[in-house]
């Protein structure tokens, strides 16, 4: 029985360190290669020794696919390819390929330069690793080798995020991290490809989100009110993704409401990322794509680069600054400058880790102790807005509905939440759902259909027989199946014989039927003839001069029983091809002849 095996090395009933091994029809594919943010030791990377203890990974893996540029999906890539050793192809979309090295470099800097770790991948390794990357376009079918093909689908608003369909022959797997567009459901789209297995994330398995429109409106209203009062707004952000989303939001709002207050964006990493957003405009949502005819939305009109000196400028302004949790850097500097004025506002657009300034002010602390025993009194308003890009339970269900998979496998989520979603999926779609833990292998049996070539002559001949072809109904046909050189062909028996150089053997079935009939042989034959003629109206029944009867190609002869003259023996003989009619005739004759008056 053909089977698909899935083993998560990371992200199995867990979030972070996404790395899933799939073996499908003899091909091994690795989906994502991420790092875990919670660990600083060996556990931060997936355990690649599971694949092979010694030797290069290249021999064991056919390809690696990266779904998007978040570090928990691509963070271990240089380690995997350069330090463990992998030379095969790595597939990702163009935007991911562009942005991924920036993030990896940033990650490397923090780990090596700030934390002083050794034995970590180097900048050169990132570069080398990126050389192995093959970029794919959306909906482009890439042949990895002769049998394995992959295809990317648009997966939503994180720039360049994609779903991947992996296909070998008739068996296929779809892998999705279904990120969704900023404000709308249903952004991710996949055709009804009916894969054998759908591997999906389940971060928000137990959440159904409210419309983003309300949250956006609240956010914009708060910013607008503060600016109108003459206050300054600080928005601490992480460099990628959400920041661009918020920029677009504010930019459009400024445009719409004809506002004049300046918006600044702190420089550095983000600017580079903005540049890529500008380049990959087609990967963004409809609004942005539509406006592109007039201008590139990422060529911000109102948003300018920030300079440290601007923070002291009078009048209202909005500043996006990194990092997002107010724990260091520019955002903290600005925060310290503005915290004393109650007209100002800080908006935290995401979750803050405990211990950071961000977390403190969100939990309502008004007096902060800064380094050097300074006490900073926070008079400015503190707001929290959550913008999250993950699909909620409904989104996942919708995706399943669209793709109609035969099995579903959940990864990238907490076990408890997965349990709920699993139950729902099984209940509503009646498909099997799996949620393996890390290192646990799930085997899925598939029932692939096997294509067989049929010769046109045979097809035409067979369809001509009998009734008209009825769509979508199975039809019986006769032919010879030849399995040769890994291919299947259905040909007519004659051709098969010819091809194989075999002589044709006739196979005849004969059967004796005893009939109690005291009359003479030829009379019996005549009676049988009349009877058959009466029953089988559609067939040609002939009485031959030599005393035998033929029904189509079936021969019936009658002889008297050697011992008992009252019993006649009917010899029915038919070829193997006429099995159906022959057996019918015998059963008919066995019932005996009708008592005729003649």
């Amino acid at each position, binding site marked *: 029985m053909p089977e698909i095996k899935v083993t998560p090395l990371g992200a199995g009933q867990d979030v972070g360190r996404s790395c899933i091994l799939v073996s499908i029809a003899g091909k091994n594919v690795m989906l994502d290669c991420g790092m875990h943010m919670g660990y600083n030791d060996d556990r931060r990377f997936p355990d690649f020794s599971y694949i092979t203890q010694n030797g290069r990974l290249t021999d064991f893996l056919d390809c690696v696919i990266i779904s998007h540029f978040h570090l928990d999906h691509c963070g271990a890539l240089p380690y995997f390819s350069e330090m463990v050793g992998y030379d095969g192809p790595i597939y990702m979309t163009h935007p991911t390929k562009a942005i991924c090295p920036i993030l990896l470099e940033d990650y490397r800097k923090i780990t090596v330069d700030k934390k002083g770790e050794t034995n970590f991948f180097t900048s050169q390794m990132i570069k080398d690793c990126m050389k192995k990357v093959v970029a794919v376009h959306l909906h482009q079918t890439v042949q990895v080798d002769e049998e394995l093909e992959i295809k990317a689908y648009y997966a939503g608003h994180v720039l360049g995020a994609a779903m991947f369909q992996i296909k070998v022959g008739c068996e296929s797997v779809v892998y999705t991290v279904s990120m969704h567009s900023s404000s709308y459901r249903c952004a991710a789209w996949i055709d009804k490809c009916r894969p054998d297995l759908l591997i999906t994330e389940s971060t928000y398995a137990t959440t159904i989100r409210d419309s983003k429109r309300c949250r956006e409106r609240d956010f914009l209203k708060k910013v607008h009110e503060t600016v109108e009062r003459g206050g300054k707004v600080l928005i601490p952000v992480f460099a990628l993704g959400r920041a661009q989303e918020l920029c677009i939001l504010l930019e459009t709002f400024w445009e719409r409401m004809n506002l004049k207050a300046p918006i600044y964006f702190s420089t550095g990493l983000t600017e580079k990322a903005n540049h890529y957003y500008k380049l990959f405009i087609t990967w963004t949502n409809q609004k942005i794509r539509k406006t592109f005819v007039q201008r590139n939305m990422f060529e911000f009109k109102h948003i300018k680069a920030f300079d440290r000196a601007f923070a002291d400028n009078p009048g209202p302004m909005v500043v996006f600054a990194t990092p997002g949790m107010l724990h260091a850097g520019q955002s903290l500097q600005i925060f310290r400058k503005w915290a004393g004025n109650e007209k100002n506002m800080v908006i935290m657009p995401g979750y803050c880790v405990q211990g950071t300034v961000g977390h403190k002010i969100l939990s309502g602390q008004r007096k902060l102790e800064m380094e050097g025993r300074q006490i900073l009194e926070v008079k400015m308003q503190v707001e929290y807005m959550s913008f999250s890009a993950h699909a909620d339970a409904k989104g996942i269900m919708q995706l399943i509905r*669209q793709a109609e998979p035969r099995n579903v496998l959940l990864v990238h989520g907490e076990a408890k939440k997965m349990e709920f979603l699993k139950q729902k999926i099984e209940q*509503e779609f009646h498909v099997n759902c799996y949620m393996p833990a890390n290192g646990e292998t799930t085997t899925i049996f598939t029932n692939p259909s096997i294509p067989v070539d049929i010769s046109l002559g045979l097809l035409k001949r067979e369809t001509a027989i009998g009734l008209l072809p009825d769509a979508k109904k199975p039809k019986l046909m006769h032919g010879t199946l030849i399995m040769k050189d890994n291919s299947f062909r259905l040909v007519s028996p004659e051709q098969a014989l010819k091809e194989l150089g075999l002589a044709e053997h006739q196979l005849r079935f004969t059967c004796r039927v005893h009939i109690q009939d005291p009359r003479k042989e030829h009379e019996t034959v005549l009676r049988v003839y009349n009877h058959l003629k009466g029953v089988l109206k559609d067939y040609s029944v002939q009485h031959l001069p030599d005393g035998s009867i033929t029904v189509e190609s079936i021969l019936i002869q009658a002889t008297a029983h050697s011992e008992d003259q009252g019993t006649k023996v009917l010899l029915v003989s038919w070829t193997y091809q006429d099995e159906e009619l022959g057996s019918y005739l015998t059963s008919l004759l066995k019932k005996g002849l009708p008592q005729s008056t003649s």
Partner: protein
Amino acid sequence: MAAHLKKRVYEEFTKVVQVSAEGSELCRVTPQQHEDLSAKKLRLTKPSKSAALHVDLCKATSPADALQYLLQFARKPVEVESVEGVVRILLEHYYKENDASVRLKIASLLGLLSKTAGFSPDCIMDDAINTLQNEKSHQVLAQLLDTLLVIGTKLTENPSVRMRLVEVACKHLTDSSHGVRNKCLQLIGCLGPVEKGVAKEAESQAAKDVQKIIGDHFNDQDPRVRTAAIKAMLQLHERGLKLQQAIYGQACKLLADDYEQVRSAAVQLIWVLSQLYPESIVPIPSSNEEIRLVDDAFGKICHMVSDGSWVVRVQAAKLLGSMQQVSSHFLEQTLDKKLMSDLRRKRTAHERAKELYSSGEFSSGRKWGDDAPKEEIDTGAVNLIESGACGAFVHGLEDEMYEVRIAAVEALCMLAQSSPSFAEKCLDFLVDMFNDEIEEVRLQSIHTMRKISNNITLREDQLDTVLAVLEDSSRDIREALHELLCCTNVSTKEGIHLALVELLKNLTKYPTDRESIWKCLKFLGSRHPTLVLPLVPELLSTHPFFDTPEPDMDDPAYIAVLVLIFNAAKSCPTMPALFSDHTFRHYAYLRDSLSHLVPPLRLPGRKLVSSPVSPSITPHEDPSQQFLHQSLERVYNLQHLDPQGIQELLEFTIRDLQRLGELQSELAGMADFTATYLQCQLLLIKALQEKLWNVAAPLYLKQNALASAAAKQILEETYKMEFMYSGVESRQVVIIHHMRLQAKALQLIVTARTTRGVEPLFGMCEKFLQEVDSFQRCFISELPQMQGSFVDKLLDLMPRLVTSKPSEVVKILQTTLRQSTFLHLPLPERLHRASANIIEPTGESDNPLRFTSGLVVALDVDATLEHVQDPQGTVKVQVLYPDGQAQLIHPKPADFRNPGPGRHRLITQVYLSHTAWTEPCQIEVRLLLAYNSNKSKAATKIAKSTWNESLEALPQPENGIEGTIPFSKPVKVYIMPKPARR
């Protein structure tokens, strides 16, 4: 048959050759004769088209050649009379042709030819059907079936033809090519019998069969055929066949089809069935319950709102709006959304807002975890993928594609209009849509809200969101919002205050919105007098003890406040007591200057100026209408008064009518129209009454000047009458044209008397007679009603006129003109005079618009147009420079907006340029109404029957304008082109 045909064609062909040979022989004949000859030749060459084609096709050596000939042939039109011949030739070649592509082209040509107006294709039907028999190529088959479809649609009245064609189609339904099956289904859909005569049992049997045949193809293996089958079914429905309920189940299965076009068509089919059998009961699968079909269909279509393809989503969302019979229980489910977070129930932002509102607390929004989830959810009870109506609109409104969102908003609007309780519920969602990222969606939701505003009252937090949109930079959005506020119900006085504050903010930010904001406040005030009352002291900043400074009367914001208060005071008699002295003074001023915004008030110590007409009188016994008719009767009845008397009477009546128009705005169009007509008549009479007609003309130039001026004026007025009024019917057009004809006659007479010599008169007479002739042709049906009129008499004399000399013609004209009676002008039901008002530029600015000469400056023009038909085609902007140079600008069609019936708004930019001036000077901007009498109603009566109208009747925008009528007050703009610096 074929031989006979060939003979005929050759006959024609040889004939042509003969004639052309003749023509070459006779090339030295007189021009007159030659003209005759060429005309004859022209007529003869016509039917030879088929012959030429035949020759061409015979000449063709290869299929490619033949194809080329056919393509060339297809470019030229074919006359009705030669169609049949051409078809025969084509068919003959069809049988001979081996190449499928040529046969395909011939088949398509057959279809094209059958479309020829005036040609009845029944004669070629048999041949067309015969061609089907031996055809092997699927493409050609499909094309031939298409041709049959064309033939069938031309012969719809003939049931036997249709039956026959349907039979043919049924026969080919088993073809293996999807294209052929497609066409067959289309044919059956378009021609299948739909009548259900009680007597014709066989017919209804056939009708049943047609549905069954089409229904069988619902599970065809090709999605295109499936789509075609559903479309054919829909086509049958459109043609009036009642579809059977039995196909509902089949249609429901098609909703899960793999292909979007099938799903999209299936959604339509389900909708149709739900409208046909709303009340029948269908079982719910996997349970014993049963529900109404319309509810079931509604649920299914709702489910399609979250389909994978946006085309289907749009389709489904649109159709939801028209399902009004659905039970309210299902309807309200569409807005249902349950949120949860970590398996705990969460309240939506809407619910939170509502709660805050009802608890009287202000939204803090400051706490983190304000939206923290509350109660636990029973995991079994959560239904993640809702079947049926649940949350359909929630999905639709949050869709990624704005097309879906717009469709959802539209549907929401239609459903809310019919169900007040639903309107109340969907309010939160609509308000949310005001902040959509796409402008069209925002605009659409504002319009929707306006349409349902009768059923709703806005909560304060909703109002807040609505008002926030006032700052939008798009003028359309703001104005739509003002319109919305005009008809919104606000529940609290804080709400009114908030609205006023936001509107004033809007006013300071966008001063051009002045008019619109004032109008908005007018309605806001008159709708909520009791809510405004407690706000008055604050708004007027009066103080019980102290006098406050008098506000500036010219401040638009102050005017806005006053408009609100005065309109509220109209139905709140206690309010004026709160006014201070200067408020009364300002009232008097505003009542005069902005009378359309400030209502008459019953103020203490002042008499209420009674309005001219008390509103209690119903329109039936409207005295003004009666007056209008009476005065007209009077004029028409007194035919034989002495000339002086007639003149006086006309003058009085005209004066009366003009005054009436000023007083009664609803009768203004009618009164003006008749007054103009009478004015024309008066001018004509005056011109004819001059005593000096008998004197030798050249001596009395002055008198002639008067008459010719009168003729000119009458001409102008008749154009105004014809083109400036909307609602003019053909009865009036005749009279107007008649008047114009009289004016032209007068012109002719005057010219005849002033010019010496006969030569120029020849041409003029000729032209005049042509005009009489065309008048006769255009209005032949109206002529009997014009007994004793000028034209009636003229037509009697026509044979004489044609033969007589110009001087005699003039004499005859003069006498007929004097003798002719004056025609009764019937009044149409409704008549409105087109008018325009330029809002911007205001013409008040003293600052000249400076620009460098040779370059252009853009001038924003904003105008309202009323009762203009087809403004895109007719309204032009004229700019007059001080040097007399005039410039005509055609605004783009997109510059016109249509805010209401009969109203249009022109917002455009006019580019000005000029050489350098020494000092600033004023230019005039005005709006013109372009007209073209050829395009008028009279001309369209002459039906054109050309083979290919779309090719021949290409629009000619520049030549389309015959003249223009100014219909707005000119506005002066100060400009200053500076010399360019070197």
